[in-house]
């Protein structure tokens, strides 16, 4: 009898504790999506929702619905247009004078005037702060000062033809919040946009609600193709591709970010949703160690050309999927400095074999070369890509070692602070790089200029190439503007192509599964903005 009582007590305790866990847990419930809510299944949760993150849409999806910039790039034309700025004018090579839109208020009720804008810019670009936008948008501190209540003067510490573009990257957020509660600046954005921040359920989603007081509703020159017509926006975090796709297929979400090429093909045969794709500004490339801390044999132009000739770029594009063959440079047509004479490197394995034989005949120890082909695990389809490159190099007689490394392992190895510790290296890093600025200046500086480890930003640069003459020409080009700048950059683009420093492997497209009946206009920066995203007419 005692035994039965004991067992029953145990079962009761067990059932009670499970029931208590169920009750406690169900108290934290979230409302189901309502009519009028746009649900977007995104690939990753934002690191934070600070206003500076407006530059990185893929990492902070949807933020520009809440936080606006002074200037923005039109997704269709690519031209810069005013958002919170009504106009802007160059004062000199370092300075732009910006006229601020009047009558706009932040979501916390504070005024968006010149003082607020200046505070916001100084906060984001201050070198004392370490916002990631500074790494992304290039060196040079930006400061702003108030001229009058609706005009600010924005200056760069260095001559900067891209200053207007840089102003299109950072969001303007409430100075009141920064003063009163700076910690919330990172998790509860207060901007001026067509949606106000709702909530951020860590690990789940973040939401924004329609702002009936948005300035754009009563303005003739508001940006966007439509007035926002969703009552709320919900960005749901789903890192698994299949889970995002399933959300659209089951009707839980209207848009899923970055489906695989197979999912896009399948969507063509399915009613209810379709796959739309568009080019991005992101390139997959191979960067071969050159002069900095590299094996001396990799300076031999024949070896380098042979390695580049051995790579079947078109084949790799097919392998990667949702991509196209890039020109032999890291920027699309229309980019300042784009060189139409520079085309993709030819695939010529026989030519590669001949070059290697010639180098060998001249005494180069080709047999001792072993290229370490390394990709970062977070890059899409990286394993088959590096394996294919390895096989291509093997086929012309170059030994290889294939590696896929985690970001923690890989990232330090592509920055001078890391690879300075690897003398005699023979690495081809297979990596991705965006070039959203429509200008080759920043790209050449960060990818090809000889970085000094003592330079404040030098240790985090990625270039493997050191050539004083090239650096001098680049410094000269960066100070110039207009056609002069284009011509100088074009010449430099030709130079880096001829020296076989980086082989562009694919221009990556990005795709979305979109429920039928929704128009989604996006540019190469792929932003989810409600003013470009509405019900089809």
């Amino acid at each position, binding site marked *: 009898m005692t035994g039965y009582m004991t067992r029953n007590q145990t079962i009761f305790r067990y059932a009670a504790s499970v029931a208590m866990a169920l009750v406690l847990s169900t108290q934290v419930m979230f409302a189901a999506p309502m009519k009028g809510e746009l649900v977007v299944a995104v690939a990753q949760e934002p690191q934070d929702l600070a206003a500076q993150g407006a530059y990185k849409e893929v990492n902070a999806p949807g933020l520009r619905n809440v936080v606006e910039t002074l200037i923005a790039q039109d997704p269709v034309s690519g031209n810069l247009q005013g958002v919170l700025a009504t106009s802007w004018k160059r004062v000199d090579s370092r300075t732009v004078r910006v006229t601020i839109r009047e009558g706009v208020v932040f979501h916390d009720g504070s005024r968006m005037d010149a003082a607020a804008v200046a505070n916001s810019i100084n906060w984001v670009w201050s070198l004392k702060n370490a916002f990631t936008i500074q790494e992304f948008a290039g060196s040079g501190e930006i400061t702003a000062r108030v001229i009058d209540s609706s005009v600010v003067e924005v200056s760069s510490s260095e001559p900067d033809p891209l200053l207007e573009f840089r102003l299109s990257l950072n969001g303007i957020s409430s100075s009141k919040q920064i003063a009163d509660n700076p910690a919330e600046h990172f998790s509860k954005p207060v901007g001026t946009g067509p949606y106000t921040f709702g909530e951020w359920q860590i690990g789940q989603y973040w939401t924004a609600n329609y702002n009936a007081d948005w300035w754009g509703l009563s303005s003739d020159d508001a940006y966007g193709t439509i007035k926002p017509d969703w009552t709320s926006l919900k960005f749901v975090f789903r890192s698994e591709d299949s889970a995002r796709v399933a959300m659209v297929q089951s009707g*839980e979400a209207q848009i899923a970010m970055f489906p695989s090429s197979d999912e896009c093909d399948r969507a063509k045969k399915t009613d209810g949703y379709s796959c739309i794709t568009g080019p991005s500004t992101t390139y997959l490339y191979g960067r071969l160690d050159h002069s900095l801390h590299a094996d001396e044999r990799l300076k031999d132009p024949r070896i380098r050309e042979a390695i580049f000739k051995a790579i079947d770029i078109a084949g790799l594009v097919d392998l990667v999927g949702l991509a196209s063959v890039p020109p032999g440079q890291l920027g699309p047509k229309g980019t300042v400095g784009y060189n139409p004479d520079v085309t993709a490197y030819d695939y010529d394995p026989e030519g590669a074999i001949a070059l290697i034989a010639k180098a060998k005949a001249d005494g180069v120890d080709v047999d001792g070369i072993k290229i370490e082909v390394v990709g970062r695990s977070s890059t899409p389809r990286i394993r088959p890509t590096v394996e294919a490159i390895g096989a291509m190099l093997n086929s012309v007689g170059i030994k290889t070692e294939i590696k896929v490394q985690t970001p923690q392992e890989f990232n330090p190895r592509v920055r001078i602070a890391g690879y300075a510790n690897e003398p005699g290296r023979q690495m081809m890093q297979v990596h991705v790089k965006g070039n959203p600025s429509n200008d080759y200046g920043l790209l050449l500086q960060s990818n090809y200029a000889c970085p000094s480890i003592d330079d404040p930003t030098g240790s985090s640069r990625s270039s493997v190439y050191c050539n004083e003459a090239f650096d001098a020409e680049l410094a000269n080009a960066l100070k110039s503007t207009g056609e002069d700048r284009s011509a100088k950059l074009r010449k430099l683009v030709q130079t880096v192509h001829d020296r076989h420093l980086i082989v562009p492997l694919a221009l990556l497209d990005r795709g979305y599964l979109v429920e039928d009946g929704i128009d989604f206009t996006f540019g190469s920066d792929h932003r989810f903005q409600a003013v470009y995203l509405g019900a089809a007419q």
Partner: protein
Amino acid sequence: MPYTLRRILNSILLLLVTISFVFFAGRMIGDPALNMLGPGATPAALEKLRVVAGLNDPLWQQYLHYIGRLLTGDLGVSYRFGFSVIPAIDLKELGQPVINIVLERLPATFFLAGSALVVAVPLGIFMGVTAAAHPRSIADRIVTALSLAGVSVVQFWLGLMLIVLFSVQLGWLPTGGYGGFQHVILPALTLAARPIGRIAQVTRSTMMDELAKPYIITAQAKGVQNHRIVYHHALKNAAIPIVTMIGDETSALLTGAILVEKIFAWPGVGLLIIDSLSRSDLPLIQASIAVVAALVIIVNLLVDFSYRYFKPEIILGRGR
């Protein structure tokens, strides 16, 4: 020393070893400040973090500080917004106490693990008992096949298949997220597959042994009803291996929920561990693993103590 006290002290020691291992491992994989802030961090930001987090102190001092804070319930502060470190602001203002973050996630993990257990325990025992009571029957063969499938199936694949079937094809259940009872069904089923299989296998084999014992034959000869023999006599006596297995599986549910939480975007401690690993948020990694380790140790302790209820004649620890 009484057995109970000895087991508790052993458990505390085991927890301390686990926590110490995580602490030192986190510092052996490179500069913690650089890992947390990333290679793009400025020297000023790195130095600020090192000062605030005490990373410039000798390792033994850091360890003693950590253990000292741990005893007061302070597991540190999460630098979730670490990539945007602003020296002008006290990092402690930006950070959140990690213990609060972990405790916020625990109910979701308990809900998921509890739901999986609610399914797995009765179903696994029922399947095992049914198979043992009818050896070599069709029911036995089906249970054997299903339990083998449950143990062998890859959770990732099963989760996606359940999503395709119940969310996409039938439209009955949500694909994931945390929003109520209907949201827990698919992740709980995915998580329950393995414990159902293991509990069924162990129950079947222990019950078959038990049902072959003389006292069962005696009970049958006395005309005791079969279900009473099976469920009241044999099952009770076969309980210890089954309870041990349930304890093991409960621990596995707490730690093994990581993959399921990721597939279904279930905001529990498992997803938090993945999230904190991807952000190299060292204090949060340490706290999450410490809390999960503590839970596993507590579950194992409770399983040990529960033996006395099932076999009062067992006096644990005596004779050593």
